[in-house]
């Protein structure tokens, strides 16, 4: 079908709203999709890392002599060598605090101390084994609450990146582990809490878990004196380019980041990870260098934030929550990465989707001596919801109120002000909750399992999140002389299906089949700026840019038609239009689009802002469980997750995003945990760190969405990458409590934890292992 200018059969909504199979699906099922981890360049050499075995210490000496003698080894590199090519070896998105290789000190077990470059990765690995180092060990701090008052300091002084205005005051701060404190004050918490009829206080914790994307981190750097090219498994090529340009003191146009498909990321491959190291090594080797992690090494790269959340609520005699205080401590690990942003951007929603007049939030990002923490599918929100939705159920129970009615009384509905002061719009939280309850058949009698040792229970949770703001996306739509369309956009398709969804938007505007739109692989020499594929921002922000670019192209085609004398409304084939104008198959029409939402910075100290987010993400989950009270084993018989997606651009992709996110968080909730002993991760392998498999699927797993038109969204849509993660944890904990009357305040909810809680409840606690 030839693309024409004004097809008479053009139907609105013929491309968006369709479950188009993924455009790159064929490449993926035939083994032809490119991933950085499988790429090789001619002349490429390989680097492997020697890592710290102590959590905190001064480096006394590093002996690389034996490693250097291994045949095939080209260089053994320490930070001293790095500093000969890059004067300041520190990088990071919020703070420039992370050295390319450990500099004078090590700050966590697993921190890279030296690198071996060899002709073969196995040779490099073997040589790494021959490196030794001596450290003067120092006391370390591991716990986020301890880190607040500890006299062990992970960093001698703080080094905020100049890009963030709200971090400026921390420049050169000494004797602190606090990388950022975010505060929100609304009304008068102290007064309202003191006056409240009922007062509640609970403390919840989450453990250290990690992304474990199946394509481990990988980066190839090809450095030339005139320009540098990266092949990079990255969720944010634009940021990588800026940061590499900064390190080199070069203009951005000499730095090129090419990103093939990603074997997923879930937030792990954001900002800057292996790139600075790969750069330094390539400058030293003067050959393309590949740094690719093993699964084990991912445990030393980035994880989710462990957290401690102290939550207090005052409730009046009618069951209305009148005051809430949230103190959240985020365990950021040894380097800030994006932790300060997690602390702030999720911190502002710590009080939940409730209408509360007096709110106090303190959210602290803390340095500790463990693997750094960053973004993981939810930017901190799942940890918050774990606490506030457990708290909500515990209060309802104590007040002898129905958990549905208690929530209904307190829901933040549209038109009311959020704790930040923003008036809620497109926030149909009750719709989401109702759908969960409907699918749970909540109003019907529930079978509790009689008198056997198997106890049945059910629970649910609801949540909201503000999308990170303000961020910018740019897109280009290029119509070639044969009428075919190509989209240039920096959103990285790491499995979420963005290429397909973005192509659907282009196709919708240009009235062509989605399958005919080509999406170029990401390449910063070609694809314009995008802030990053993160925080469920892409479909909304990049979606707007893409739509605008397609509309711009369409308008330019129409202008071209006019220019060549076509009558108004002509349905000339696009190819003919170019023929007429250029006399042959030649030329292009290039449309471009930019999007950045309006935003008002939260006021310092109070966190108040009339416009802190362009859209809200809303989710609810419901769970039914069977608890074996003799073993503590929990069987999940039902897990229902409902999200508001605005408008499903690709319904099947939306459902898969929901089911994938829900099952991932089932893992985080029920069993995943990095065991850390004296700073040492003791289960750093997929064999010892279990993730969900087929047999962990709940008997019934339902992934649903409601479509509440997002009035400012492209085609009414908004992002859904993270939203299904929010409520899984507390829904399960609430269901377990409902089943057997034990409340677990810290993830994971494995059989041992549940059994211990059951025994404690019986007054016969088990001894600590």
């Amino acid at each position: 079908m030839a693309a024409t200018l004004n097809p008479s059969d053009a139907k609105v909504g013929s491309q968006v709203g369709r479950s188009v199979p993924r455009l790159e699906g064929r490449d993926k099922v035939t083994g032809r999709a490119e991933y950085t981890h499988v790429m090789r360049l001619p002349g490429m050499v390989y680097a492997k890392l020697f890592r710290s075995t102590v959590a905190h210490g001064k480096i006394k000496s590093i002996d690389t002599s034996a490693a250097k003698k291994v045949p095939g080894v080209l260089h053994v590199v320490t930070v001293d060598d790095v500093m000969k090519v890059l004067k300041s070896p520190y990088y990071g998105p919020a703070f420039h605090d992370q050295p390319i290789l450990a500099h004078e000190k090590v700050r966590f077990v697993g921190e890279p101390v030296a690198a071996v470059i060899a002709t073969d990765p196995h040779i490099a690995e073997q040589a790494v084994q021959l490196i030794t180092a001596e450290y003067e060990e120092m006391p370390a701090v591991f716990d986020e609450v301890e880190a607040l008052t500890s006299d062990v300091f992970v960093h001698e002084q703080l080094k905020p990146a100049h890009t963030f205005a709200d971090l400026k005051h921390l420049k050169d701060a000494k004797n602190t582990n606090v990388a950022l404190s975010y505060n929100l004050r609304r009304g008068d918490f102290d007064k309202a809490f003191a006056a409240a009829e009922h007062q509640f206080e609970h403390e919840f914790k989450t453990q250290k878990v990690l992304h474990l994307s199946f394509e481990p981190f990988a980066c190839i750097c090809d450095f030339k004196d005139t320009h540098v090219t990266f092949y990079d498994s990255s969720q944010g090529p634009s940021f990588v380019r800026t940061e590499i340009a900064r390190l080199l003191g070069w203009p951005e146009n000499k730095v090129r980041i090419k990103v093939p498909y990603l074997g997923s990321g879930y937030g792990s491959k954001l900002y800057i990870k292996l790139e600075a190291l790969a750069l330094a090594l390539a400058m030293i080797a003067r050959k393309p260098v590949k740094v690719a992690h093993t699964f084990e090494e991912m445990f030393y790269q980035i994880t989710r934030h462990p957290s401690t959340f102290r939550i207090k609520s005052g409730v009046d005699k009618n069951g209305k929550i009148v005051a809430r205080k949230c103190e959240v401590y985020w365990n950021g690990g040894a380097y800030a990465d994006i932790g300060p942003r997690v602390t702030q951007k999720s911190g502002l929603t710590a009080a939940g989707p409730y209408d509360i007049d007096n709110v106090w939030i303190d959210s602290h990002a803390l340095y500790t001596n463990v693997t750094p923490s960053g973004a993981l599918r939810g930017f901190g929100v799942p940890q918050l919801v774990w606490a506030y939705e457990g708290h909500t159920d515990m209060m309802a129970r104590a007040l002898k109120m129905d958990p549905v009615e208690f929530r209904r009384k307190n829901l933040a509905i549209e038109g009311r002000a959020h704790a930040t002061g923003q008036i809620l719009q497109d926030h149909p939280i009750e719709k989401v909750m109702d759908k969960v309850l409907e699918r749970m058949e909540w109003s019907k009698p529930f079978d509790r399992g009689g008198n056997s040792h198997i106890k049945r229970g059910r629970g649910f949770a609801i949540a909201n999140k503000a999308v990170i703001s303000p961020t910018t996306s740019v897109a280009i739509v290029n119509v070639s002389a044969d009428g075919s369309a190509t989209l240039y956009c920096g959103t990285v398709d790491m499995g979420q299906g963005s290429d397909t969804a973005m192509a659907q938007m282009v196709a919708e505007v240009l009235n062509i089949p989605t399958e005919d739109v080509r999406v170029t692989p990401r390449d910063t020499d070609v694809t314009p700026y995008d802030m990053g594929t993160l925080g469920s921002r892409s479909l909304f922000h990049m979606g707007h840019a893409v739509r605008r670019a397609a509309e711009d192209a369409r308008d330019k085609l129409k202008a071209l038609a006019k220019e060549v004398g076509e009558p108004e409304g002509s349905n000339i084939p696009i190819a003919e239009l170019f023929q007429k104008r250029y006399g042959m198959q030649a030329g292009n029409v290039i449309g471009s689009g930019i999007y950045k939402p309006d935003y008002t910075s939260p006021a310092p100290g109070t966190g108040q802002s009339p416009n802190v987010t362009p859209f809200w993400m809303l989710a609810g989950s419901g769970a039914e469980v069977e608890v074996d009270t003799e073993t503590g084993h929990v069987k999940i018989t039902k897990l229902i997750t409902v999200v508001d997606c605005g408008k499903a651009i690709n319904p099947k992709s939306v459902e898969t995003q929901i089911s994938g996110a829900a099952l991932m968080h089932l893992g985080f909730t029920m069993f995943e945990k990095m065991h850390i002993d004296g700073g040492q991760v003791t289960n750093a392998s997929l064999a010892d760190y279990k993730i969900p498999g087929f047999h962990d699927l709940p008997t019934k797993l339902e992934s649903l969405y409601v479509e509440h038109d997002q009035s400012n969204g492209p085609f009414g849509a908004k992002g859904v990458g993270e939203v299904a993660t929010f409520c899984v944890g507390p829904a399960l904990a609430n269901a377990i409590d409902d089943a057997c009357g034990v409340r677990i305040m810290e993830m994971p909810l494995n059989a041992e934890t549940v059994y211990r809680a059951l025994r404690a409840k019986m007054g016969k606690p088990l001894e600590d292992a």
Partner: protein
Amino acid sequence: MSNKIDLTLNINGQDHAVSVEPRKTLVDAIREDCALTGTHIGCEHGVCGACTVIVGGEAVRSCLMFAVQAQGKPIRTVEGLASGKTLHPLQRSFMAHHGLQCGFCTPGFLMLAVNTLEKNPAIGDEELLDVLSSNLCRCTGYQNIILAVKAAREDMRTKEEAVAG
């Protein structure tokens, strides 16, 4: 260390003469020496199944096998599934049912499922799930993978019946 051995790997019906160290795993030999990069490496210790290929009629973890052990046995990888431009029913069905997201686990799942359905075209749902459970996926939540394999099972069965009839 580098006493290399010469061997011939027969992959998807084609012989590849390679010279590898005895310690080289099959997956490395397939990817590096035979330049077939469709087989992925994940955990490298036999847990994830991303590296699954078929050797001598059995689905195996190619990260747990040395290249020398595969000498003389026919090896099948994801690149050999389609015949020309025509995709294997499983490949079609993974696409149609959104049985993949990032796709990193996909070649392994395809080879495991192909081997299973070829050996036992009438395999029951429960047994099928048991076999598939040896591989892991971090993205999809598995439901669409199950859907895709079941649909392919029906598809392959009707084809066989058509051929038989």
